[in-house]
């Protein structure tokens, strides 16, 4: 069954006619064309689908779209401000923290939410914060470096 869903994504208001059972991941990717949010497992185990819901990292594959109609959703596409990339996006690129890039959107959003709350984190805290986001390429070394480099500039 379809229903009209109002969503607030990346500062824009959307009104979508879509199936009521759809997850936020499905709506973002299929109805809004925001394919930066990745489907890695659809089971809430890899973190690739992480988006920010009212600033908190959340697994969009385990979230019903209808349940977040009053929330502010931020995807990787909405992280740049006025054409200026978020420092984490730049740092991930410059520090070699991106290889295949499939975990990157989720990893960056988790890191952003973490840095918003933790100005000067220790390495162990960063590792703990991103431990729900799996990466098979980098061994996490350069990801942690990138996050720490941004926190140092804050």
């Amino acid at each position, binding site marked *: 069954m379809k229903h009209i869903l109002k969503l607030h994504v990346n500062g824009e208001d959307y009104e979508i006619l879509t199936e009521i059972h759809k997850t936020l991941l499905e709506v973002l990717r299929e109805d809004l064309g925001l394919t930066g949010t990745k489907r890695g497992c659809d089971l809430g185990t890899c973190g690739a689908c992480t988006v920010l819901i009212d600033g908190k990292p959340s697994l969009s594959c385990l979230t019903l779209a209808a349940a977040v109609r009053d929330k502010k959703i931020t995807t990787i596409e909405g992280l740049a401000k006025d054409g200026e990339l978020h420092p984490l996006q730049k740092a991930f690129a410059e520090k070699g923290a991106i290889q295949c*890039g499939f975990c990157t959107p989720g990893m960056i959003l988790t890191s952003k939410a973490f840095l918003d709350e933790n100005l000067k984190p220790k390495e162990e805290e960063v590792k*703990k914060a991103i431990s729900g986001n799996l990466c098979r390429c980098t061994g996490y070394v*350069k990801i942690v470096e990138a996050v720490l480099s941004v926190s140092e500039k804050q």
Partner: protein
Amino acid sequence: MHKLNVVGKRSPMLDALEKATGQARFTDDLSLPGMLFGKILRSPHPHAKILHVDLSGALKVKGVQGAISGKDIPRKKYGIVPMAKDEYALAIDKVRYIGDEVAAVAAASLDAAEEAISKIRVDYEVLPAVFDPLESMKPGAPVIHEEVPNNISASIRKEFGNVEKAFLESDFVFENDFETQAINHAPLEPHAALSTADHSGKVTLWSSTQIPFFLRRNLATTLDIPESKVRVIKPKVGGGFGQKIDLYAKDFCAAFFAMKMKKPVKFVYEREEMFTSTRQRHPFRIRLKTGMKKDGTIHAQQFRAIADGGAYNSTAPLMITLACYFIMLPYRLENLLFEGYHVYTNKPVGGAMRGHGIPQVRFAVEAQLDMISEKMGIDPLEIRLKNAFLAGEPHPAKLLVQSCGFSDTLKKAAEGIGWAEKRGKLPFGRGVGLAGASFPSGVSNMSHISSGAVVKIERDGSITLLTGAADIGQGAETVISQIAAEELGVLLEDIRITAADTEITPLDPGTFGSGVTLRAGNAARMAASEARGKLLEAAAEKMEADIKDLEIRDRRVFSKENPERGMSFQEAVKVYQYSDRPMPIVGTGSYMPPAKEPTTLLKEDGNFSPAYSFMTQAAEVQVDTATGKITVLNMVAAHDCGRAINPMLVEGQLEGSVVGGMGQALYEDVMTEKGQVLNPSFLDYGIPTAMEAPSINSVEVETDDPEGPFGAKESGEGTQLAPAPAIINAIYDAIGVRFNILPVTPEKVLEALQKKE
């Protein structure tokens, strides 16, 4: 060699910002108008005859537009190694493991496709199954493929030197058994395929593939159409590690339905399918006998290695050849008898995975070397240094090793981990260990041997580079562009690279056998050199100079003798153009490695690879003796990758590979019971998270290989050969317990500690 401007720089990957902003498109991110969604029905039985498939229920589901089973497709077998084709895109007559493909549907929505799959009725006659490779090799075991009555689908028996005599000459003989487990590559991006077909019968396929040209060949074979009717395009690929070298049912079915219905069709695998129905690292049973001379020389080795291949061959003959040949490096070994078997079982299928048959045998050799060094009272580092192969030595297996920094990797890894201060000297529960390895830089791929490249210098002085190399996240496009930019004397940002579209880019073996930098890099360099020569010819004419006196650097053409004389790169292009020469300036290159196809090495001797990389991993571990939990504190990855084209990307390769290797030492295991995978999810399988990742020190040992482009060799794959034995050797140093079976879980540690008391 003159000073390098672009090669050797820590340049970010060319597509890093695309990936950081969500703009990078992977196969599942693509959609086309009117696109259908596909799903595959898989076998619930490990071994059964298919008596009848009734698709009528599926076809009645609203939105379903097509359903097929094995009897609807061309009876054409495929395989990655031509001599070992044993697989149909959908099972015909028989299923051979739980997860084998039986039928497929295409529907207007994924929901409809899922419902349709549940409505397909299949009558099976369940057959006896076999799950253990040793059982499978016995006479009377269930036969999995009729053409292979003994279930041994690939084998190698190869002797170098005189092994019997060498064992008699040995002062000490050691014999041990080792076992390794099944590992899933677990790339974050699930396998996906999207296909369209036009009315001329031409198929276009976007696929998460590591080797577009092989996929084209296998797709043409299975669809039974000419290669020219198949175009494979590789979008961004979210990691592969070897799992994405094969054709899968999703590729075939997407194309088959697209041809049949003239509509775009997409298939995406679920994570569970990734674990049950793609490929995995072969579990090995190994018996290793080693003969030693009193002075610590490794005099003879005898291997019996049995690889559990699962239900199909995939790369079987190649995998078993790699396992054999890479016992002959990185140590000097005159006498080796290697018997290797690839055995069918009714389980998930083995295939190429980072290291490809070598990590298993390397684990045995490196773990045993530590036992030997203890018994003989020689330091494990010393025994390795003593036997380390050196560049230019004649090789008993006729491998041509032109550069070899193995000894240096040993020394640097030992230094990095604090070997002298720590080995045998740390408190109980803490220890260090190391292990060495060697890997080819480019395995010759059967029938797709050479790598091609096209370089075009455009009117505005920018460069278009076409390569068939497949970037799957390792940064191939960046590295190849750096090589071309260096050769042309321009900047990296001047290069626009188009990669991996079988209709546009030249043939390339793909991301396979660690050959991308060397093969495609050499081809790009040759193409760049040719285009450069054409440009310089025009510039020399204008400058009334000898072309040999001209140089290009930093976008400037100038005389070497009188550097003041010259012109900008763009001006040279203008000069070229105004001299009525054809535009754009095109250079082509093709590189064929001076090496044999590995499957010929099953029978005859010869050189395996254009170059060989060498590496040592050192580990420091902490064992919690109360819980059995092992923490890897530090890893040092010392790697001879020739010259690093991009040191930052090399480090990234080493770091990722080390953590993968750690997972294989301590956590990962695709567990099965009666052929059923018990842990087909990230949660149950458990790849390392950031919490487990150790501190990693990457040490590049540069050797400048004469065959590699600007001296470059392999970097990331070989790194996964030695972390497991290094960690296992460190655990022994920590608690005095030897583990010969991987992975070393806390339960095993506790059990072993109790036994020890």
